[in-house]
């Protein structure tokens, strides 16, 4: 199975453009942090420190990091599905709180009640972490509705947009179609991002979808559509920045298909036998971390030693998160009765 040709224009960039070094170093650091965090999570899962469903983000780092770096989280909101560790780190949640949640400890971001699929940070406007395929799409449409309502009814001057991430598997749910129609009818500032990693669990997109380039579906809702190279974090950042401006200026939702690839199985229990080694290797050659690093080396913004320092630093952060999680207390059993009613 080779990489297929797309029928739409894929937005990408071939250099660092006019981005500042500090900004790109931060993107590189965040992607490396996610990669190392997920590697450690996999290792701890193997040691049975982490249980249940655990969906890793390796390979897709440029999507969450590029998109979320284009936001103003004082005003914007982010919702995603169950493959959510990367988004949680990208919105700036503490690795300690995320790892402790994976361990089910009281110090976890959800006090050990959510686990891998349910990372939340209300202050950072990150509303999960949803375990039902596509169920975050109507909710995200609702936060975009609130953003419109605050402006139109309550007179707030500055309101943001909502980024709604979901996988290519979710696009066939009724929730997707009902939500995009509502967002278009009511002119809501929602940016719908298909993290198109080419497989809904073990099922290749082309086996269950009438189209493979989801930008095409935007036309049916009379909203703008766009396709972005999801292995290039600068392309994702630039594309989402543009979309964010358009959503606000034109009062319109936007559908964006971001082409990416997941290196691991669907979850920890999946050996991913439904795809070829060649396909995986082809994508690993355009690894988002290597791509950014190469562009920065070309622009003389960074060298190998400096990258190694970044990598060593994030490894230290990840190891500290393990230590934090290991040393944290189990939740008292009585806390099962808490956090149900306000």
């Amino acid at each position: 199975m080779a990489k297929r040709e797309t029928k739409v224009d894929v937005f990408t960039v071939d250099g660092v453009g006019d981005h500042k070094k500090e900004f790109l170093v931060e993107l590189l650091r965040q992607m490396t942090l996610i990669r190392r965090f997920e590697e450690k999570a996999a290792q701890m899962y193997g040691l049975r420190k982490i249980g249940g469903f655990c969906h890793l983000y390796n390979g897709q780092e440029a999507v969450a990091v590029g998109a979320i770096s284009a936001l103003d989280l004082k005003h914007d909101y982010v919702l995603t599905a169950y493959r959510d560790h990367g988004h949680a780190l990208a919105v700036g949640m503490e690795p300690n709180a995320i790892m402790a949640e994976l361990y089910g400890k009281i110090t976890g971001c959800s006090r050990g009640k959510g686990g891998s699929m349910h990372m939340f940070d209300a202050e950072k406007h990150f509303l999960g972490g949803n375990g039902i395929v596509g169920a975050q799409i109507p909710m995200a449409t609702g936060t975009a509705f609130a953003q419109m309502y605050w402006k139109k009814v309550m007179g707030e001057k500055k309101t943001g947009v909502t980024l709604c991430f979901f996988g290519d598997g979710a696009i066939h749910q009724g929730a997707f179609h009902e939500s995009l129609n509502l967002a278009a009818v009511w002119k809501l500032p929602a940016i719908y991002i298909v993290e198109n990693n080419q497989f809904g669990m073990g099922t290749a997109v082309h086996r269950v979808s009438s189209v493979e380039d989801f930008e095409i579906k935007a036309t049916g809702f009379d909203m703008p559509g766009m396709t972005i190279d999801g292995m290039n974090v600068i392309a994702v950042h630039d594309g989402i920045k543009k979309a964010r401006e358009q959503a606000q200026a034109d009062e319109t939702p936007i559908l964006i298909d971001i082409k990416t690839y997941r290196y691991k199985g669907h979850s920890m229990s999946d050996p991913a036998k439904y795809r070829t080694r060649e396909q995986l290797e082809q994508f690993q050659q355009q690894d988002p971390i290597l791509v950014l690093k190469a562009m920065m080396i070309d622009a003389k913004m960074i060298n190998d030693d400096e990258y190694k320092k970044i990598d060593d630093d994030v490894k230290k952060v990840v190891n500290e998160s393990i230590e934090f999680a290991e040393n944290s207390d189990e939740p008292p059993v009585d806390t099962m009765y808490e956090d149900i009613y306000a």
Partner: protein
Amino acid sequence: MAEISIRDALNQALDEEMARDERVFLLGEEVGEYNGAYKVSRGLLDKYGAPRVLDTPIAELGFTGLAVGAATVGLRPVVEWMTFNFALLALDQVINNAAKMRHMSGGQLNVPIVFRGPNGPAEYLSSQHSQALQSLFVHIPGLKVASYATPYDAKGILKSAIRDDNPVVLIESEMAYAWTGEVPDEEYTIPLGKADVKREGSDITLITYSKPLRMVLEAASELESMGVSAEVIDLRSLRPLDEEAIYASVRKTNRAVVVDESWPMASVGSHVAWLISRNCFDVLDAQVELVCSEDVPMPYNHRMELAVQPSVEKIIDASKRVLYME
């Protein structure tokens, strides 16, 4: 005190709460220009305009989930389902999102939202449109569920539900919207979670909620003519359940009949009957009886559909059984 219908009592509650708090908005099928399928929202679009009153497309999952998302960031939506039968399409958003956000976020998020609409059988509507589906919602921790069968209760409970910081499901009845009763002129609310003694008595406790209240009160009158003093408890709130109100009455009468228009298995009625058996065992003078719908989908034929549901006769028969009056 004015004598008004349940329909108008609900309309007043919506109007007053929308005037009080601009975060409150109403959405659903036909709630705006059409003035509501059952006219509960009559005049509200004219008064408040869009987007405070929103006609939605026929997409229950989508607009219910949109409201859940809006509530999660601080708005206070009232979702009208044209019937609970259509709400089945929205169950994922109610059960997996509205009821779980606070828990899964470790208490970080609240979902202050009201879901309301007609539930239970009306007439001549066959099986897809004649279902009392409250058990599906009552089963779920994280939701509150309440009901009303008088204008006074309808207005006071809806106002409390809108002010509550949790998701609240309100059970209404198509047949009861026109029922009238007295409602105070001054503002009031009725706290969620409280049952109400609708008639005092000493020989037997009849426990019910929602539309069957009227036939239970009728049965109580007939029992009186037979020399039996029946106490009628209107549960009103189904989750949380006012268990103490139930036990206090049964400890007084030593006999109980539960009347619930839903099916018998895993229902509010069967649960209440179990609670009484377990917690009032020592004071009971007879078995607890449950009068509910026959365990069949609703037929269209009118004689059959009446035979499926609870009736005054069935309630009196059950009462006689626990009073050993056969």
